[in-house]
């Protein structure tokens, strides 16, 4: 089938790039938004618009909060399906373990716990016999943020980019995994196809016809951020490899893995199982103080990023305190482990081995817990360059084929163009629709989060239908007006979101920038306004292009002023 190496690689790039490109747009765009996920949360939940807080006192603030924490109804429902018999009442479930997690950007604290249940599993191999509970609290007071308040950044956009928010049998994770793998293949095949990567590094000819300028932009955005694109796809695969993509240690090699866990707990002194003997918990605040003292002694003073306590109320109980990785690429680390009942140090995590260090660096560069605002914004740029690369790929695909398809009456170009509109402007419409819905719906509405999610999917679906409806001209080798029309809607929604933020919270830009500076909200508002301005500029440019094309068509010329279909040679 493929007579030459380059031809076969071109085929892979074109067809796998096209099909998975639609998923990759979602990964890159929502991944870019995820860099500032917590800032978007602040915009969406005005109650949390205060400064980032360090981990609060466990003894005085967190302990009573955990005493009130219960198993979450959602997890109760899914666990009930995995066990025999009824689950006990949440008030009677003993708490087996707990965690608290924060970063340098979080005003609010994420907490959670596992609760023990006496039920037996339906599947004997199932050893996850706990029900989970979780909450978000204000670390200054211990108040819980209502569950209904959807964290649009960290709870919607962020999981969108790694799971498409499609939980059924984790199918979203697998689709994204395949897309990430195809991204790697697309990058390698792209380089193979585009031999002159350095010579054409700065080549961008916007005044030439669409096919040429689109290809220029596609090549440029692909090449200049090649390390970024490759490493993000690669590290994305690595992060989930052991759980979803190559779960060898949970399946084929599970016996070996389990044996290691037991040996590991013997080696580290962190018991794998509870002893069955009750014991109280010593002062956790004293443990935190000791952990901070030890970190400072190793010349890496820091804040607590993650606190974990296992075998609660048991003699084998231990508390693990990890340092927040705000000042370097590797994530949380330098764990110090304490015996829960006495507060003595059981173990200080040794420096990492070479392999572990590489792994922490790679996952850390993707998950970005570091405090470096320039690098974060550069990451957003990288993500957007990836989106431009994919979008120009779609546009090039259509431009190259639509004349041929018009002659043979094929609808293929039209459909691809419609899907392209949906994943570019349509995706922006959905993104801004959820923000608008967030500001329109009252804060105390029951199930507010669910309604916001409906607004998101509903808006995207409408964008798809609009795109398909308006794309008929593409089947005649002309341009679809859907691009321009959706650009106007994007601008409208983005501006509306800013205005609604002002009217519903009083936090307008003059306030958040100057008089009562609060960068998270100002940043989101400014980004919305910039997007609105760009959308308007693009819409007007597209209108001019459409007028010129219509005149040319009336005069009997081809779409690009030429009478002949010229094929573009790949560079």
């Amino acid at each position, binding site marked *: *089938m*493929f007579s030459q*190496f380059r031809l*076969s*690689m071109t*085929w*892979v790039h074109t067809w796998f790039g096209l099909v998975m490109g639609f998923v990759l747009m979602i990964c890159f765009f929502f991944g870019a938004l995820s860099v500032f996920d917590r800032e978007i949360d602040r915009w969406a939940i005005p109650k949390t618009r205060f400064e980032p807080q360090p981990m609060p006192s466990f003894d005085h603030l967190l302990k009573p909060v955990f005493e009130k924490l219960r198993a979450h109804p959602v997890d109760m429902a899914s666990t009930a399906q995995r066990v025999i018999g009824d689950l006990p009442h949440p008030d009677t479930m003993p708490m087996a373990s707990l965690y608290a997690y924060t970063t340098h950007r979080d005003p609010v604290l994420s907490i959670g716990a596992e609760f023990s249940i006496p039920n037996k599993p339906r599947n004997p191999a199932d050893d996850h016999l706990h029900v989970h509970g979780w909450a978000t609290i204000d670390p200054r007071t211990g108040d819980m943020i209502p569950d209904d308040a959807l964290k649009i950044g960290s709870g919607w956009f962020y999981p969108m980019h790694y799971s498409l928010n499609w939980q059924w049998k984790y199918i979203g994770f697998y689709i994204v995994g395949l897309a990430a*793998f195809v991204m*790697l*293949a697309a990058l*390698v*095949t792209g380089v193979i196809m585009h031999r002159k990567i350095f010579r054409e590094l700065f080549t961008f000819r916007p005044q030439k016809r669409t096919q040429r300028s689109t290809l220029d932009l596609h090549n440029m955005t692909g090449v200049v951020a090649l390390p970024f694109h490759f490493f993000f796809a*690669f590290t994305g*695969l*690595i992060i989930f*490899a*052991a759980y979803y993509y*190559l779960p*060898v*240690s949970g399946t*084929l*090699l599970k*016996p*070996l*893995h389990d*044996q*290691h866990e037991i040996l*590991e707990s013997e080696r580290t002194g962190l018991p794998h199982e509870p002893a069955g003997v009750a014991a109280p918990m010593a002062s956790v605040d004293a443990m935190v103080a000791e952990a901070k003292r030890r970190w400072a002694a190793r010349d890496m003073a820091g804040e607590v990023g993650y606190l974990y306590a296992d075998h609660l109320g048991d003699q084998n109980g231990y508390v693990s305190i990890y340092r927040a990785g705000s000042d370097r690429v590797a994530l949380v680390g330098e764990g110090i482990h304490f015996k829960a009942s006495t507060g003595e140090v059981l173990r200080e995590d040794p420096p990492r*081995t070479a*392999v*572990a260090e*590489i*792994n922490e660096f*790679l996952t850390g560069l993707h998950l970005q817990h570091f405090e470096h605002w320039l690098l974060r914004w550069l990451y957003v740029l990288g993500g957007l360059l990836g989106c431009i690369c994919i979008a120009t790929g779609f546009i090039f695909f259509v431009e190259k084929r639509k004349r041929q398809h018009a002659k043979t009456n094929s609808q293929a170009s039209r459909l691809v163009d419609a899907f392209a509109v949906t994943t570019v402007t349509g995706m922006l419409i959905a993104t801004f629709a959820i923000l608008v819905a967030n500001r329109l719906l009252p804060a105390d509405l029951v199930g507010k989060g669910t309604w916001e999610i409906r607004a998101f999917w509903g808006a995207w679906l409408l964008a798809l239908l609009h795109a398909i409806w308006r794309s008929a001209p593409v089947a005649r080798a002309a341009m679809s007006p859907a691009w321009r029309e959706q650009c106007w809607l994007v601008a409208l929604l983005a501006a509306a979101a800013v205005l609604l933020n002002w009217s519903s919270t009083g936090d307008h830009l003059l306030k958040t920038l100057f008089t009562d500076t609060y960068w998270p909200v100002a940043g989101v508002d400014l980004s919305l306004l910039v997007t609105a301005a760009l959308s308007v500029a693009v819409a007007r440019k597209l209108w001019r292009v459409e007028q010129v094309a219509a005149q040319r068509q009336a005069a009997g010329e081809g779409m690009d002023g030429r009478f002949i279909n010229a094929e573009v040679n790949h560079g």
Partner: protein
Amino acid sequence: MIQQLSIINRIAAALIGGYAFTWGFAALGIAGLVALGVDFHEAEMAVLLLAFLVFLALFLWVFATTRVARAWVLLGGGAVLMITAALALQRALLG
């Protein structure tokens, strides 16, 4: 029609065959390193870092190669051999 089937065959070989081989590589790699005395999680991390690159190379090779049938045999056969070896090693290490 034949062209369509031939394309599907190649895609299947690249994705399914390639994935199976990668699975075998990962299993044998981890078990093998553990047998050599490497800590399990260390072995897992190291092997998974390599595994996707191995898969990528195989995937592209299947599209570049002239005979897909040969690819199926090498990938499938390799997968079976490596998985069998990994399971045998595991039994030996635990037994």
